[in-house]
């Protein structure tokens, strides 16, 4: 695939002078961000800081008002289809159909993505997120956390090169959260790129190489994660959240 080469050579994600205005209100004003393959970035910010908007632009679900967003060497506006081929996205919604079982949901999404997968592989994905016992249970009976785990199982079947996660630890128990950390660490080690938003200072930050704080529509802090303790991050987050408010 020719998307692989530019990705390896340059940045997996490159955002330049990005601006997004929604209903007359600027959500993102001038965001610049570059993430290399094999790197994980945790995106922090108060509610309304524009974290989800940035992720949605990178996932090609929303168009920027100005500026450029490039994922794996492809412009998110001009070559949205190419971007979609190499991005895995877990949004707030779990993308599940209530009247289908967990296994059927995975079968649906993998086939729709043009990657029909055998039942055994689907079961392995469910086992990874500890949902194998509920493979034949209708999703209607699942809790929020179980739906979230199912969404993560879907992510693992897509073979993405870039993963975008919007608060992936919300609703997850300790065991599932640990699995996400391990999965992301392995994904990163294989050259994949991760951009995740989180409000959880325990989870998510462990796997991150860099911490980026969004406030006032732009990046106010972009620093290596190793240089900061969780308490430092919390202090910085709270300081910028107050500024934003």
């Amino acid at each position: 695939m020719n998307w692989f080469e530019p990705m390896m050579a340059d940045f997996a994600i490159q955002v330049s002078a990005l601006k997004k205005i929604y209903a007359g209100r600027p959500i993102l004003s001038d965001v610049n961000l570059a993430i290399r393959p094999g790197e994980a970035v945790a995106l922090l910010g108060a509610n309304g800081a524009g974290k989800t908007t940035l992720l949605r632009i990178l996932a090609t679900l929303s168009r920027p008002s100005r500026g450029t967003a490039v994922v794996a060497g492809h412009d998110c506006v001009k070559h949205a289809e190419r971007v979609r081929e190499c991005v895995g996205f877990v949004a707030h919604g779990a993308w599940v159909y209530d009247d289908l079982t967990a296994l059927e949901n995975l079968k649906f999404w993998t086939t729709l993505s043009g990657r029909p997968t055998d039942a055994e592989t689907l079961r392995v994905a469910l086992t990874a997120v500890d949902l194998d016992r509920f493979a034949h249970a209708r999703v209607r009976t699942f809790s929020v956390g179980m739906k979230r785990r199912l969404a993560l199982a879907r992510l693992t079947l897509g073979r993405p090169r870039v993963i975008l996660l919007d608060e992936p630890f919300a609703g997850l128990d300790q065991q599932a959260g640990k699995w996400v950390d391990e999965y992301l660490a392995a994904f990163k080690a294989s050259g994949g790129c991760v951009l995740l938003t989180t409000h959880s200072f325990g989870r998510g930050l462990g796997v991150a190489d860099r911490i980026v704080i969004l406030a006032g529509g732009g990046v106010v802090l972009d620093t290596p994660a190793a240089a900061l303790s969780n308490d430092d991050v919390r202090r910085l987050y709270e300081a910028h959240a107050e500024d934003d408010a």
Partner: protein
Amino acid sequence: MIYARRAWIVLWKDALAERRSKEALNALFFFTLLLLFIFQFTLGGDRERLADALPGLLWLGFVLSGLVGLGRAFLTERDHDCWEGLLLSPGDKSAIYLGKLAGNLLLMLLVEAITLVLFGVFFNLDVGRHLPALAGVVVLGTVGFAAVGTLFAAMTAQVRARELLFPVLLLPVLVPVLLASVKATEAVLAGEGLSGVTHWLKLLAAADAVYVAVGVLTFDAILEG
């Protein structure tokens, strides 16, 4: 091959979900039953008035139940943001349209078959005698209805006033299909075979082809919003 498989999986998902929940089928069945009661009370046993009004009533029943059914076509996609998943799935989005269209078509034909039987019972109508010709007209009319209905259901799925907007947009576009369907049904019930309604069937087939082609060509843009 992948395209056909993608269309098939959408149909499979919709059919499976409907078989389990029976939400649309139950709603449409009771809605149709209610309509038939109203028609029966209005027309009574006057056979002459009935013969004149029956083709129109039959299609009125199909259209009203179709509006209810098609209006729900993308409701499941709105739950848990599955719409986003469809949008982000790589590949030609028209496969999703064809899968959805096939699912809607199956549901509508099932409801129409039940409606026809109930019409026969309520109005003492010998449907069996006209069945092959009637089935041809109903299938051709329903394909056009479902094709444009599926498209407009997608178009209005994310709109706040979709319940109002959907029929307002759909019905004017359906005029050629409804006109041809009612006239062809009238002729068939009057005893003319398919040979007597060829011109209407040609019009229906042409409208079906145009509507399906427009759906295939524009669904991507509609999904993208």
